[in-house]
């Protein structure tokens, strides 16, 4: 009954505004949105280990609407899971409007009430974000105020609870961040070749002590600082975060404080780029519910310091995931172009990418203080332990041969410690080689065929794999593709299976519709530091996305 009254009131108001707008002949604002829906029909396929889906058909979908009028913005997202697709957390059940907000921008201040996403610095201390394709969404619900003080000082404050599926975190997250751009603050430095930006953040969470065994801190604070220094072609970014003691399910309820440091330096000129980075993470699981796990209710964002691969054998079988309890990581990433018109660069030049990443456990000493201080262990900054978590060396070379032919060759070498990662099915450390040849042939301006041949070789886990892909595109609207993945080296004969899949799609403007039919291999899908394990499936998938 009440909703009916609201509806009537709304219609009345809107008519009023409509008339008023017509009178004034001026815009009453803009409304835009985007829509995404994936439906999968699951066939029974016990050979590949596809779980039986009683509903047969599952669907994830959402619609975003954003209204803007001058300095005012309001938005909402409707989400529907009927029922949630395989591989997503079943916490996503039913429908709702878990995201809605209104915000107003003044000259120096912006206020948001309702839901919002935000990050401080690189997100090491606080990041509230969404990765819809992975089912990650820890949106805040509360208030955010952003402001600019004087020249070059930017401040933000947030308070709220984080989203978990269709509910909210038991803990409240409070935080403030300030960033000072030295070159903006001092007019004499505005043209300086050296640029310096400093930042500092403070985040605290409150959660009632719900533990019968221990007396837990109800308020847990974290603080940090960051620096971004650029001089000419050089740049340095560094961020450090310290977290007070925060006993949690992740760390086995120890009272040790946590810390994380991220260091990155780059040098680049036209045709050459180099980035070196290092990080140390120690007891840095920080959530708005100390009892949560996996990707739920994280306050910190601790991405893997490794390259995010795109070829399916390199990306979805053995991807690295950050170990928030402790790791030391290092990465070097280099990109350059071989000169065009030389014997080594070819007629059009050649692009080369080289990347190396390493992650080890911490060098720590266990303290037997379970019944006294419960500090757990001792460690030092950047002291890597013996245990190898991950190694990744990879090279990618791209060369245009002529107007119709382009080649890309890649090689990957991984060392993957599954005893720590626990992402694949079998125990142990895997040694993996992968090679990919990617050939693009353009028949004319709109017709082209891309072929991928991939091979993965390992003595461990599921053994060798091969992937073959053909993708025909008819620009600007159509694509057709066929892919087969073949686990030809599986140590178990009956598991030497093919995973063929056909896909086709049509694009127009902001709309895309695609259909695929076939087998999908079990895999680990990652974006940033988050991974989602998706079980094998067989069936038809329909996806529709639209932006308007």
């Amino acid at each position, binding site marked *: 009954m009440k*909703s009916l009254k*609201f*509806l009537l009131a*709304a*219609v009345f*108001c*809107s*008519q009023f*505004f409509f008339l008023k*707008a017509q009178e004034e002949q001026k*815009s*009453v*604002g803009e409304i835009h*949105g985007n829509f995404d829906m994936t439906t999968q029909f699951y066939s029974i396929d016990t050979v590949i280990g596809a779980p039986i889906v009683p509903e047969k058909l599952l669907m994830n979908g959402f619609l*975003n*609407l*954003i*209204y803007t009028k001058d300095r005012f913005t*309001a938005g909402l997202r409707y989400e529907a899971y009927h029922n949630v697709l395989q591989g997503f957390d079943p916490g996503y059940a039913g429908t*709702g*409007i878990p995201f809605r907000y209104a915000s107003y921008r003044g000259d120096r201040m912006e206020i948001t009430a309702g839901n919002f*996403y*935000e*990050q401080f610095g690189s*997100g090491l201390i606080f990041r509230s*974000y969404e990765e819809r394709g992975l089912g990650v969404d820890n949106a805040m619900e509360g208030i955010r105020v952003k402001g600019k003080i004087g020249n070059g000082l930017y401040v933000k404050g947030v308070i709220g609870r984080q989203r978990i599926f269709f509910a909210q975190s038991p803990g409240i997250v409070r935080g403030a961040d300030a960033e000072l751009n030295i070159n903006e603050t001092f007019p004499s430095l505005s043209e300086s070749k050296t*640029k310096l*930006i400093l930042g500092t953040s403070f985040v605290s969470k409150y959660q009632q002590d719900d533990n019968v065994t221990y007396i837990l801190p109800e308020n847990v604070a974290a603080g940090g600082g960051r620096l*971004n220094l650029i001089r000419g072609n050089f*740049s340095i970014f560094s961020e450090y975060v310290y977290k007070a003691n925060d006993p949690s399910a992740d760390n086995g309820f120890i009272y040790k404080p946590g810390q994380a440091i991220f260091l*990155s330096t*780059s040098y*680049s000129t036209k045709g050459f*780029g180099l*980035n070196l980075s290092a990080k140390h993470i120690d007891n840095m699981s920080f959530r708005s519910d100390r009892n949560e796990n996996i990707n739920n209710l994280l306050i910190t*964002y601790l*991405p*893997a310091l490794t390259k995010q691969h*795109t070829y399916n054998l390199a990306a979805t079988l053995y991807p690295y995931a950050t170990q928030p309890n402790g790791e030391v990581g290092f990465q070097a990433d*280099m*990109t350059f*172009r071989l000169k065009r018109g030389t014997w080594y660069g070819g007629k059009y030049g050649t692009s080369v990418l080289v990347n190396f990443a390493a992650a080890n456990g911490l060098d720590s000493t266990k303290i037997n203080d379970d019944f006294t201080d419960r500090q757990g262990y001792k460690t030092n900054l950047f002291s890597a332990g013996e245990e190898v978590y991950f190694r990744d060396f990879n090279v990618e070379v791209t060369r245009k041969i002529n107007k119709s032919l382009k080649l890309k060759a890649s090689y990957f070498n991984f060392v993957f410690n599954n005893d720590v990662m626990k992402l694949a099915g079998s125990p142990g450390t895997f040694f993996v080689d992968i090679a990919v040849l990617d050939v693009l042939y*353009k028949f004319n301006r*709109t017709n*082209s065929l*891309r072929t991928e041949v991939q091979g993965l070789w390992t003595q461990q886990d599921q053994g060798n794999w091969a992937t073959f892909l053909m993708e025909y*595109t*008819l*620009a*600007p609207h*159509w*694509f057709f593709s066929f892919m087969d993945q073949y686990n030809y080296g599986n140590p178990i004969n009956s598991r030497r299976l093919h995973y063929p899949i056909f896909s086709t799609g049509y*694009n127009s*403007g*902001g709309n*895309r519709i695609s259909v695929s039919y076939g087998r999908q291999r079990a895999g680990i899908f990652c974006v*940033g530091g988050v991974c989602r394990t998706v079980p094998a499936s067989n069936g038809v998938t329909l996806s529709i*996305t*639209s*932006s308007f």
Partner: protein
Amino acid sequence: MNKAIIFSLFLLFTIGVKAQDARSIPEVEIKDLYGNVFNTANLSNDGKPMVISFWATWCSPCKRELNNIAEEYIDWQDETGVKIVAVSIDDARNMQKVKPYVDGQAWEYEVLLDPNGDFKRLMNVNNVPHTFLVDGNGQIVWQHNSYSEGDEYELYELVQKLAAGESIEH
């Protein structure tokens, strides 16, 4: 109850808002490649067409699109004065690699960083690559999701139309 209010509010907006052909660039603070705060309301190209392309270092079709356009970009600029703004949605994992990659590929684009997807969300981008075409009045007149080899020719035809003062059919 809550839902009823929200639905009513939006009904209000949807009925109240006139159907529009064009769309303006939403305003939000993101960063440039040097860490400076950049307000997207300042995106403009002095009355000439502008392309806003969302991409990421981990997105192969995005890189194919921007690398293919890079080969033609000088001609495009000479002929139409078009400017390309490449908005990277790389988060902390890859953000520090954006500038080395852009320089390594010798891109001449204006590159912006949107590490938490704030601009992406306001532009209603579902997936990358997603490309928008903005006319000389700062109105978004066309968009395209995903990239297939050769899509850039369609984009450039539209850029030429805009540069010649013609309107674009939806």
